[in-house]
Structure formats: C-alpha cells, structure tokens
C-alpha cells in the first residue's frame, strides 16, 4: 500500500530530465504514473528517484504534419479519446485509447507511458504495430527515431537507453480508403485484455487490399505483429474467406500463456474471432 521511500525531482526542461536519468541509473520517469505507482505500492518497483516530467512544456499535442499524425508523448489517453481528429481519421487509435483502463485512469495515463512501460498487456503497442508507427526519443546521445517494430524487446523492456525519454509518437497520416479497428475482450471494464487485436487496412483502387497491419495484445511476451496474416490479405479482395484465413494465421502467430484470464487454447481462439471482427470493422470504415 505504501511505496518505499524515494527521491523526487521535477525538472523544468527535457535536457534536465535526461541529465537526471543519466546521473541516476536506477531512476524512473514519472508521467501518468498509473502503471508505475501501482507497482511501487505493491513494492514490485523501488526506484530510488522519480523524475517527474509532467511539468515539461510542449510534449502534449495531437497534430497532422508532414505526412504524419504526430502525438506528443505526454498526451493523456483522455485527450486522445476526446479528439475529433482521431475519432474521424484514426478510428483504430480512437478505439484503443477508449479501452485503456477506465476514464479516471485515462485522465492521467499517457500514450508515451503506455509504450515505454512495455507491459505486454498494454493496448497501444499492438495498435502502433498495426499502424507501422514510429517513436521519437531524446537522450544524452541526442534525438532518434525508432520504428515501432524494433521498439519492444521483452516484457517491460524496450530499446530505450536508461536516460532516453519518449517525446513523440508518429503514425502515417490517414489515407482515404483506409480504416482500422481495435477489438479487446476484457473480463470487466478496466481490466487488461484477455486478448485484443488491432487491424488497419488500406483498400486499393481495384478494391483489393493494398496494405494491412495486424497487432496482437497480451498474447505474448511482447505485442505481436501478425505478419503472415497481413501477407495473406495483401493483393486480395477482403471477402469472408480471406478474412477468415488471415484470422487463422493471426491465431497461429499468438503465443498466449494460460492464466486467470483464460487457457492458451481459449486465447488463441479468441484472437481468431477478434481478428475477424476487427478486419470486418476496418473494412467497413475503409469503405465509408
């Protein structure tokens, strides 16, 4: 219930924050805090220093620019959920933001944190895989852009150096004839996913699938990009048979572990069903 004691710093600039992290290898970034603080309350995490980045300016924004949807890492999930731009043009992202925890948590939780914390049960990772997103990070070595497919290394592990802070998430700007959807099964509101599927598709001029991205949540040690399922869609018309074939491949790409949310077989079957639903919804949205 009561976290272990720690030192607390509130840097005024990003460079100050990076410097603090560099000086303290065991320090953790505090943004929304709604993954970190619960862990500290259970004493599963005991960072000796928290670097509170909530006062840093200019890290919360949602805008389209230069062919990308750019989202500041400190953008709260509630602001993603409330964004007309995202709801209209990035429905997969809107679906995802809306299913994270509950409205109270979403008032504090940040997109950057959801990715950087890299809990395999977090929702944004699969969605970013489906979108082919990039993240931007700043550390003592300067700024770098990381394709999301290279970002996740394991449970709670990313390629970020200890002193690197995520500053921005970039999603390719929405094309016409593209659509996406996120389908998540949870035991009750606020739970992590028993399994979830993110699907993003683009329909070409011929009516066939030009591009597809499918990401799987909480059925592996990291979010999973269902590459074979994606390949099975490309160049084909998205009829029922094709969708079902892709769903089968997605379920085979999953690496679920049986736990209190369900057995391995159940989760695999769930991935298949959710993939069908997500693809159908993505198609419907791509056409409208």
């Amino acid at each position, binding site marked *: 219930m009561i976290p272990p*004691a720690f030192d*607390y710093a509130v840097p005024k600039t990003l460079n100050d924050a990076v410097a603090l992290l560099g000086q303290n290898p065991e320090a953790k970034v505090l943004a929304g805090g709604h993954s970190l603080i619960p862990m500290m309350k259970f004493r599963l995490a005991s960072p000796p220093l928290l670097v509170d980045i909530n006062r840093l300016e200019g890290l919360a924004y949602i805008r389209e620019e230069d062919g990308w949807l750019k989202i500041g890492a400190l953008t709260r999930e509630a602001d993603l959920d409330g964004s007309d731009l995202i709801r209209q043009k990035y429905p997969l992202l809107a679906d995802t933001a809306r299913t994270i925890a509950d*409205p*109270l*948590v979403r008032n504090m939780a940040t997109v950057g944190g959801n990715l950087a914390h890299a809990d395999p049960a977090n929702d944004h990772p699969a969605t970013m895989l489906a979108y082919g997103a990039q993240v931007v990070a700043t550390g003592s070595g300067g700024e770098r852009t990381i394709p999301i497919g290279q970002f996740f290394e394991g449970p709670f592990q990313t390629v970020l150096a200890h002193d690197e802070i995520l500053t921005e998430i970039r999603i390719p700007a929405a094309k016409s004839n593209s659509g996406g959807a996120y389908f998540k099964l949870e035991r009750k509101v606020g739970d992590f996913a028993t399994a979830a599927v993110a699907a993003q598709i683009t329909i070409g001029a011929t009516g066939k699938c030009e591009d597809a991205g499918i990401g799987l949540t909480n059925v592996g040690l990291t979010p999973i990009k269902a590459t074979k399922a994606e390949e099975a869609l490309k160049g084909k018309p998205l009829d029922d048979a094709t969708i079902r074939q892709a769903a089968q491949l997605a379920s085979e790409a999953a690496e679920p572990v049986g736990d209190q949310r369900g057995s391995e077989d159940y989760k695999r079957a769930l991935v298949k069903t959710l993939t069908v639903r997500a693809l159908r919804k993505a198609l419907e949205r791509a056409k409208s």
Partner: protein
Amino acid sequence: MSTHHINVTVNGAVKEAEVESRLLLVHFIREDLNLTGTHIGCDTTSCGACTVLFNGKPVKSCTVFAVQADGGEVTTVEGLPTNGKLHPIQEGFTEMHGLQCGFCTPGMMLSAVGLLQQNPDPTEEEIRWGLSGNLCRCTGYVNIVKAVQYAAEKMKG
C-alpha cells in the same frame, strides 16, 4: 528519502505541508488534512472510492503522489457544497436514493461532476461509461445513474 514543501489548494483553501515524496495524495487528504470523505477501497487502483478532482479532472487520488499536486488544485467531496447548499449531484444522490452504504458515493459524485463538466447532457450509456472507473458493491448502479441524470437536469438550469 526526501521531503518536500508543497502548496495545494484544496476546496479553495491553500494548504501548505512538508511531506515525504512517497505520500499518496489520498493519504495527504485523509490524514494530513483530516478530510475523510475521500475513501480508500482497494489496493489496486480499481475501485475509484478515492476519486477527487485534480486540476479539474477526476482522478484516483490513491495513484497520485501529494508532491505531484504542488501548486495544483484538488476538490474533494467536502468541497462540493456552495455556501452550505448541496451541490446538485449531492441532491441527486439524496433524492434518487443513489447510495446504500455510501462508501463509493463521494468518488461517484466527484466522477459525475467531472463527467457533467465534459458532457452536460449525457445519455444513460454515457453516464455508465463515464463512471466505469468507480465500483459500487451495493446498488447495482441503477439509482446512481438516476442521481446523475437528476443532477444533469438540475445543472442545465
């Protein structure tokens, strides 16, 4: 370990304190400020009994450190009445029998206030979704929804 001097405006009054960085906002409210209307109902950031308005937004105060509120504003259930007159949400919970044991009620009301600020005319589904961070073991939520609808109506003037 460090302690920090913080200034937090709670229910309109500035409170100053020297606190450990690990002090949870809910503990600061309950134990340092003796405002015990904000409740602790779980250990897992699930139940929402600790909900307060933090810089205008409803949040779970058990998952925020008091130091994060330095320079900020907090509204608790004790801050809902104006000049001794009940807030419409409090009136709604009274009139529509929106509580039984009352343990979730302060959190429910603060969440509802936050919801109605964003969406002054919510549908039932929007109310249920908007309060989905607050759990109630007694009521089955039916009268809670009615209480929020009462308040929405009252606040529309």
